[in-house]
């Protein structure tokens, strides 16, 4: 079943086509890789799905519904959450608080019930704290819960971002270069984590990543972009040996 369909998407920035008539679709429960050289348009695709950018043309369909008209803050309630290439944590909040922000769209408290700390608010606060701590445990960083997010090393910050995207219980999660800045063993743990999210939580994953061995190891299907266009799509073996892909990467990273 098609979970996310990107249909003929074009995004222009003053004449520059960052994304050019791009189509691909992600099946439910799949780990789907979106790769390509720097500036190929991968992050722009994420920003179109997140609704930060209004595509020049094309449609984005999630779970059978077109989401191209939604507002950015409505996307998480539709079931999609994401991380950012350049970590966008809430710096002056603790790790736990960062995760709690991922829950605000799903809590029913309002300013009055919170101001007077009604018992419903207490209950809800306790519940979301427990849930957030559960996620921190899965990520193996529960000891960092009460430390400031900005005080964490880069690798941990990346995990906190994933945690924050997870607390909303998304059905699709978009990860923008999650392994960037991680060392080998951290990347291995990340690979395990991503597989776990899919296998145990059933989350569909759209992955943008430069670490080719990570992509080739965990993705079932891959779309390769260059200059905004799709140049190849398919299983890792096919993509690896595709002449156009090798050409695009020539002089860049080697394909493992």
């Amino acid at each position, binding site marked *: 079943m098609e979970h996310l369909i990107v249909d003929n998407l074009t995004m222009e920035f003053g004449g520059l086509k960052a994304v050019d008539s791009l189509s691909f679709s992600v099946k439910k429960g799949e780990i789907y890789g979106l790769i390509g050289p720097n500036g190929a348009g991968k992050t722009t695709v994420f920003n179109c799905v*997140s609704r*930060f950018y209004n595509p020049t043309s094309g449609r984005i369909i999630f779970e059978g519904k077109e989401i191209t008209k939604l*507002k*950015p*803050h*409505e*996307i*998480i*309630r539709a079931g999609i*959450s*994401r991380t*950012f290439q350049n970590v*966008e*944590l*809430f*710096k*002056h*909040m603790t790790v736990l*608080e960062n995760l*709690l*922000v*991922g829950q*605000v*769209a*799903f*809590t029913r*408290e*309002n*300013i009055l019930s*919170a*101001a*007077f*700390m009604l018992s419903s*608010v207490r209950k809800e*606060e306790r519940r979301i704290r427990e849930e957030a701590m559960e996620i921190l445990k899965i990520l193996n960083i529960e000891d960092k819960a009460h430390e400031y997010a900005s005080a964490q090393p880069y690798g941990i910050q990346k995990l906190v971002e994933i945690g*924050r995207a997870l607390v*909303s219980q998304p059905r699709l999660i978009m990860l923008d270069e999650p392994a960037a800045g991680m060392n080998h063993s951290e990347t291995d743990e990340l690979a395990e984590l991503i597989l776990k999210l899919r296998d145990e939580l059933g989350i569909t994953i759209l992955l943008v990543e430069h670490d080719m061995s990570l992509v080739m190891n965990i993705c079932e299907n891959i779309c390769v972009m260059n200059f905004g266009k799709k140049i190849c799509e398919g299983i890792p073996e096919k993509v690896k040996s595709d002449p156009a892909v090798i050409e695009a990467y020539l002089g860049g990273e080697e394909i493992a």
Partner: protein
Amino acid sequence: MNAKKYISWIVLILIATLIPPILNLPGSLQYLLDLSLIYAIVAIGLNLLMGYAGQISLGHGAFLAVGAYTSAYLTLTLHVPFFIALILSGLITGIVGILLGLPALKLEGNYLAIATLGFGVAVTQIFAIWTSFTGGFSGIKPLKPELFGFKFNSYLSYYYIILILTIVLVILTWNIIRTKVGRSLMAMRDSEIAAKAMGINVSYYKTLAFGLSAFYTGIAGSLYAHLLGFMTPYDYAFSIGMSLNFLAMIVIGGIGTISGSIIGAIIMTWLPQITSNLPIKSLSQIITGAIIIAVVIFYPNGIAYAGARLKDKFEKLFAKHQEKIVVKIEK
């Protein structure tokens, strides 16, 4: 809130309750004490907007005026009881805050500062001309507050009304900032795009922050009106100068802290008074200014943080000391 923090707040409240009658301050100083708590309420409101929501306002003096004149009008002309007028002043000022917040959605940083500054100037000008509402240059005389037949004539008795309201507002604020609304405001302050991706309607929360901040200031304005025996639109508390003072309060006390708002308000209200006893008149303002600069240089995060750091150091020192003792005993 942990037990230690809880106890220190209770001790503070006890001190705030018992000190004035014990000291038996002369009227002018008791007036200043009342005033510093009223300004503390403004500072808490401004801190919600600036420290938590990350928006700037240089127009809070004007919100104070809106609250003050609303309350004066309600009690003098419409004979509304004091307490109801107080709440209504907060609500009406809050609505004005929301109205200012709407155009502010399109503005950021310096431009927002200028827009709120313009709002501040405009309100004082309008109030100066609108004599049927404000009495203009000849002023009006807001009534002393009355609750259940008891008239709060003295600055000392009125102090307790202000104190109770301050405590209530501190508790409500504390609850707001550590739940959904507070988290949304802080998230939007730290990263607007991540906040949006997390489902936070940034426009809504920016407007809410303005409304909430103005609500606090409106309450303070009402309290201020009934503290004064006589009020004109030219009152310093309504001016741009005072708006900048409010800003100084939260910067000195600590951006993004409730305790810092209160500390800052008390310092900025009492400092000029304390230094005014110096022999040379203009020296007072110079020293006040110098102290502000010194605080900003040496404690850039404000006095509340500096206090917390000092406490941390002491505790660490103490912990080390304890460790040493334990080590000795084990040996």
